[in-house]
């Protein structure tokens, strides 16, 4: 019986697979520990109240060793503003694309467009960032010029619109999956009662797929908030506390990059601030992800 694997080998290999699976846990713990550790060091130098409620972001350390200008509110509002613009672009058009592909498009058209959208979702965000900075910003400025509006070259509108285009393929593939996986008897039942396709979609399919559509929305939102390259290249560093999309604002991710691409002394409050911001980003996206992956599941009805 030489050709049989010995039992010990069998057990060793199984244990190896178990260790592999543990690595995912270790990474999560590692992210939390490294972010939390450095963030706690940061909050020992800068008070958490100043950080979460301060209105001015101009981080520097005075010669006396006092760290000032760490009010992160402008970063949070900036992130919210750009994300809002992006979602205003991505949600309606992404939803309509999903509806069209799932309910109206011919099977051939769907077979071509679905992989195309998936491929487009894989384009590096750097490419979108470059487009936003070099082409879309001047274009927006000339459009604004027609209406004699003044628009900053690094406006929130510019970064937001391009980010919306970036999220669109992601949003529409996720929503399309949600709609397409609905059982056919829902459609047949509704149309059999005389509803038009659009009435079926609006009154039967969308409510039925609502939890999955919500999950698609939340995952897209989490991606928009954590998106880095588009905003690094197209949004500014100026931390303006403004809700005007024509002005330049900055985001949490932009500031993490700018704080860490300079010198990297680990005891400096400026470097540690990046980890404070990173921790906030992690908590927000974690919350959205958990809500998307598990929270909405409770409302998911099983059809079929």
């Amino acid at each position: 019986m030489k050709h049989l694997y010995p039992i010990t080998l069998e057990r060793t290999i199984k244990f190896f697979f178990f260790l592999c699976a543990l690595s995912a846990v270790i990474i999560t713990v590692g992210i939390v520990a490294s972010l939390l550790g450095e963030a706690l060091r940061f909050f020992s130098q800068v008070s958490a109240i100043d950080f979460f409620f301060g209105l001015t972001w101009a981080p520097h350390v005075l010669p006396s060793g006092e760290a000032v200008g760490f009010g992160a509110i402008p970063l949070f509002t900036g992130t919210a503003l750009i994300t809002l613009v992006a979602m205003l672009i991505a949600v309606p058009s992404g939803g309509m694309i999903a509806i069209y592909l799932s309910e109206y498009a011919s099977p051939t058209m769907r077979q071509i467009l679905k992989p195309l959208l998936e491929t487009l979702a894989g384009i590096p965000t750097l490419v979108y960032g470059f487009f936003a900075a070099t082409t879309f910003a001047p274009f927006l400025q000339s459009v604004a010029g027609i209406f004699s509006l003044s628009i900053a070259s690094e406006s929130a509108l510019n970064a937001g619109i391009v980010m919306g285009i970036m999220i669109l393929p992601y949003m529409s593939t996720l929503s399309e999956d949600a709609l397409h996986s609905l059982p056919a008897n829902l459609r047949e039942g509704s149309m059999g009662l005389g509803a038009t396709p659009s009435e079926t979609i609006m009154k039967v399919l969308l409510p039925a797929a609502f939890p999955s559509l919500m999950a698609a929305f939340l995952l897209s939102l989490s991606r928009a908030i954590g998106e880095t390259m588009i905003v690094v290249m197209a949004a500014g560093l100026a931390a303006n506390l403004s809700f005007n999309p024509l002005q330049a604002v900055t985001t949490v991710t932009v500031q993490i990059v700018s704080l860490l691409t300079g010198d990297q002394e680990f005891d400096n409050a400026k470097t540690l601030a990046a980890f404070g911001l990173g921790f906030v980003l992690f908590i927000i996206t974690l919350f959205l992800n958990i809500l998307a992956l598990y929270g909405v599941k409770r409302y998911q009805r099983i059809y079929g």
Partner: protein
Amino acid sequence: MRTTLKKRHRRETLFRYLGLFSLLLALTFLGGIFANIVYKGYPAFFRTEIAASSGRSDLFNAHSIYHKNEDLEWITASSDVDMYYKNGQAGKLSTQKIQDIQILKKQGQIRLVLNTAFFTHSDSREPELAGIWGGLVGSLFTLAVTFLTAFPLGVGTAIYLEEFAPKNRFTHWIEANINNLAAVPSILFGLLGLVFFIHFMGLPRPSALVGGLTLALMSLPVIVVSTRAALSTVPSTLKEAALGLGATPLQVLFHHVVPTALPGIMTGVILSLARALGETAPLLMIGMVAFIGTSPSSILDPATVLPVQIFNWSRSPEMGCVENTSGAILVLLMVLAFLNGCAVLIRKRFET
């Protein structure tokens, strides 16, 4: 009755066209971005040269004159001349020089050649001499590290979860962790890499090793999710038949389950590597942003990767850098299209 029906049908048509309109709008936008980059980037594949016999050393690239040897007939033009000759952008050129270029053009002493240097040179301070070779090699080393770490770990995790894991809370917790990690912003993996690999383990900073390990952390959950999907499509009758014939669980796994699921696994791995190849943000965190004018010869050497090089060029104020940036983006997109094409091909070829 008739009128309401008419109204409802009109609404139906409107709705349908709204969907088609959104789709076309999105495709136009994405096509526009692509066309824009092709339009801006293709001149990067060409280079302006001036005949050495013209003696116009003021129009040559300074670096080229320095290395000028006697038998060189054509010399690379300076960035300003290059920009003017290709795109008609006067830039910093004086009107006198522009007239001179027109004269050279009539005499046939200025020409456009394929810019092989763009592919064979590493980064340079001068846009007309800069190339993507260093970034390409760096990307290759980085991806190799990513593949060698994320592939065994990811596939191992997926096999454990799909084939061996007991259904208990701990398993469920591991699954929750993986699903969540797949949606964590990439920049946070950069922060983890900075703290763990550089400050805790003390690995050399802008190296392909650290970059690859950081990207491996990011790719791992994606590989796990896609591998599990591939493994779950293997019919249970196959496993039961093998087990019934006396195969051990591991024999069933390695002789039947993994080979059957392999096309699906490879597709997922290729797609996750493609994602890692285009990733920039986490690499900025671990200091790969520095200017590096040589190509790395090992995974411990200071290295840059193609996307980071693109990012650095995009921040440069020099005019020649815009076309270099677009050119490099084109190369990156072509590599990504190739990888995606491979993935689609594998999926189609083995689809049952």
